[in-house]
């Protein structure tokens, strides 16, 4: 998977409303790409719901979240509404999984991405990345806050 210190691979994807979001749009802000396997699978339901609850605290630290999966913009729209979340969902739909592949988190045999978090700095450099040991294990929001906090090097 992509490592910190590398330049974030470029992308242009449609969000749940069909509006294009490009890497260049993320310049000047801290962004967290939340790669998850599929819309409507029970595990990611709670993942995005819990992240939604701490959006104000993330915003205070200047960070914005984007969900990404291989589902279409239409599925994302329905998924977003069913969850009741405002986190934008990007459709890595065509060519399928291209962005997940570029970030090194695509599972070829399953046809969807792993569960992973990639933090991109205002300069579009990868600041931090994390891959869950299995797609069933959901990374806590605490890990995002750890990566955001200016602490001494580990």
């Amino acid at each position, binding site marked *: 998977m992509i490592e910190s210190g590398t330049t974030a691979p470029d992308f242009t994807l449609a969000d749940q409303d069909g509006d294009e979001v490009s890497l260049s749009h993320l310049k000047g802000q801290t962004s967290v790409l939340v790669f998850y396997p599929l819309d409507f699978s029970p595990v990611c*339901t709670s*993942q995005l719901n819990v992240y939604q609850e*701490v959006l104000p605290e993330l915003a205070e630290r200047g960070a914005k979240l984007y969900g990404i999966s291989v589902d279409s913009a239409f599925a994302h729209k329905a998924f977003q509404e069913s969850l009741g979340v405002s986190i934008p969902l990007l459709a890595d739909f065509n060519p399928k999984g291209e962005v997940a592949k570029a970030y090194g988190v695509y599972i070829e045999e399953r046809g969807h991405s792993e569960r992973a978090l990639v933090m991109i700095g205002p300069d579009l450099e990868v600041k931090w990345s994390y891959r869950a040991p299995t797609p069933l294990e959901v*990374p806590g*929001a*605490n890990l995002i806050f750890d990566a955001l906090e200016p602490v001494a090097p580990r």
Partner: protein
Amino acid sequence: MDGEEDLGSAGVPGVADDDYVRGEGPLVVEYADLECPYCAKAHELIRDLPIRRVFRHFPVVSKHPRSRLLAHAAEAAARQDRFWDLHDSLMADQAHLEDPHLWARCRELGIDLERFEADRRSTEAAERVVRDFRAGIRAGVVTTPTLFVDGLAHPGVPGPELLARLSG
């Protein structure tokens, strides 16, 4: 820095004097949402186990719109030493969660309604729920219920293996 605002990783806080605790046995710290059906299921499964059970609030409002309000209501019941009574009542029936239903539950449980109404809107109730929620976030809670046993998180409704272990 490890201040109030910090949401970075931290272990599950130990049992505090003002925690809601019941039973005797191995310690089980539960992060739960009073509107969550999986929490109700978990409650049914662990209710009679020989465990020392600690309840902490983890309302996921985007999923369960009334969960925070219910957490505040449980806090108000706690001011009258009736936390577990209202908790059990809510867990037993999650189809009646509107205000008139809460008032009916209070009347049934003998909770002073006037005090309840004031207390559930208090800053103290709100702060307590936020305190629990933030500690849950820091401990990596991403789903409800999550049970911590020996400091290890068990997300979701407890399975047969965990239940067998907790059955003593």
